[in-house]
């Protein structure tokens, strides 16, 4: 999957009036699912819309599937699918009518009836777009992005405002796209969405990418994970430390309360419990605190993602 980049953005600058929305942003996305994660106003949509050819960069270059999205738009457009954050449909059109229309603009579209059933839009019947629920409107926009059998799909906040069940249905479709070889760039301000879906996450804040990597890499990169347990006070922490891998830490925080830091994996957990067994210690309240993207974001920016 580590082929040529599907998206390559370097030094992108975009200003609206006096306000700088994107400020020297670098981003490389490869085949698979890339999540662009950041708080509202971080520059996610501007970045994605620059890739879709809507925005002409004030500085820097953007290449999508090797093409300039503005100058080579006509070559690029049939190869990408776009889900806008909202709208995009005639208010008087029915869901199946609009989807059929977008299908007709493509040479080898998906089977519209199957896609409608797959996304649970069959119940929309003769209802026009303006009277569909928010979730139905979202799913129609998603269907419009994939119906042309694109190589690359841009999804701008695909699950914003969806209930948990509909979110999972969307995630499942995104995974199916990936399995069939479609690359996906999605923006989100939901950590769990990025963690669940993405092969690669780019964290954006104030118009720049401040960290990029797989969810695992990002979570390892920040403060390390911790394991806590309770036991009798005054255990020989130095002895425990000797049993652990070299880059680990072990301290007695308060009498009888211990914390182990480092790369917390199943092997390390087994090492800690067998050390306890050897020393006749019954470890109580063992807990492993996994470092989340939420923590990473907090550490990198000093603010909450949804603040």
């Amino acid at each position, binding site marked *: 999957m580590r082929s040529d980049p599907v998206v390559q953005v370097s030094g992108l600058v975009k200003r609206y009036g006096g306000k700088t929305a994107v400020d020297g942003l670098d981003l490389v996305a490869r085949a698979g699912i890339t999540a662009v994660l950041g708080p509202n106003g971080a520059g996610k949509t501007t970045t994605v819309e620059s890739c879709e050819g809507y925005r002409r960069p004030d500085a820097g270059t953007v290449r999508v599937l090797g093409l300039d999205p503005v100058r080579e738009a006509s070559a690029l457009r049939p190869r990408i699918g776009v889900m806008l954050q909202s709208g995009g449909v005639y208010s008087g*059109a029915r869901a199946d009518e609009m989807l059929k229309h977008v299908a007709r603009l493509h040479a080898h579209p998906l089977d519209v009836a199957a896609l409608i059933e797959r996304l649970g839009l069959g119940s929309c019947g003769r209802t026009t777009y303006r009277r569909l629920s928010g979730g139905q409107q979202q799913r129609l926009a998603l269907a419009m992005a994939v119906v042309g059998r694109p190589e690359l799909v841009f999804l701008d906040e695909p699950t914003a405002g969806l209930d948990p069940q509909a979110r999972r249905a969307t995630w499942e479709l995104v995974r199916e796209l990936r399995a069939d070889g479609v690359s996906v760039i999605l923006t989100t301000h939901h950590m769990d969405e990025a963690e669940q879906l993405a092969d690669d996450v780019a964290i954006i804040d104030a118009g720049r990418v401040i960290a990029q990597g797989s969810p695992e890499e990002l979570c390892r990169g920040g403060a390390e994970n911790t394991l806590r347990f309770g036991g009798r006070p005054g255990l020989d922490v130095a002895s425990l430390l000797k049993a652990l891998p070299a880059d680990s830490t072990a301290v007695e925080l308060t009498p009888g309360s211990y914390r182990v830091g480092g790369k917390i994996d199943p092997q390390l957990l087994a090492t800690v419990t067998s050390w306890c067994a050897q020393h006749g210690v019954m470890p109580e309240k063992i807990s492993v605190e996994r470092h989340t993207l939420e923590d990473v974001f907090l550490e990198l920016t000093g603010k909450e993602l949804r603040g």
Partner: protein
Amino acid sequence: MSAETTGTGAAAGARSTAAGTYAPRPGAAPLPRMIAAQAVLETKMLLRNGEQLLLTVIIPTLLLVLFSAVDIVDTGDGKAVDFLAPGILALAVMSTAFTGQAIATGFERRYGVLKRLAVSPLPRWGLMTAKSLSVLVTEILQVILVTVIALALGWSPHGNPFAVLLLLVLGTAAFSGLGLLMAGTLKAEATLAAANLVFLLLLIGGGVIVSLDKFPQGAQDVLGLLPISALSEGLRDVLQHGAGMPWGNLGILAVWAALGLAAAGRFFRWE
């Protein structure tokens, strides 16, 4: 539709799809097919919209029937319908090419339809071509309807059909340019209000049902330069009086068309 049925729908659809279903196979449809599909959809949207039908079908028909039957407006010598039918044809063109197109396009812009189509394989000029085709199809339906009703009311048209066709086509170009300029620069609500207001003012002051002769000479000179006056007076000269090519009116329409379409091309904003 309740939230429950929506949820069930999502769940029912959430079974997995055969592997390979989404395997990329990109490509644009042939250009004529895209433009035809777009024109069909645009026409459907227009004919489905109640306000648009009021503007393009009901008001022109009503005015034609009402003022032919009831002697309220001064239609000069001869049959009332011979005076009214050319004016109503001009009104039909204005209602579709200007008012209807401005309002529809304004809301398409507002609701992101133009934005979404801009990243589809259909080029922008293709979208504009489809819009023009949709306007022309609607106008053909209007002309048939107005002609049938006018003939039933005893209309006896004269003149060169080619001159009539030329007037209708140039009138459509002039009103389309102005309608798209409005839709592409103003907010959707402002377009809605302004397009309706302009429709009403030009209906009264553009020689549609009230002859320009009724206005003071100074006003006549100015009103005569409006595209609606050029179209209605030109059609009346030909259809009522059997005049030859109305070059003056065709010239006025051509200038409006050139200015309007150039300004729309220059200032139209897609978002």
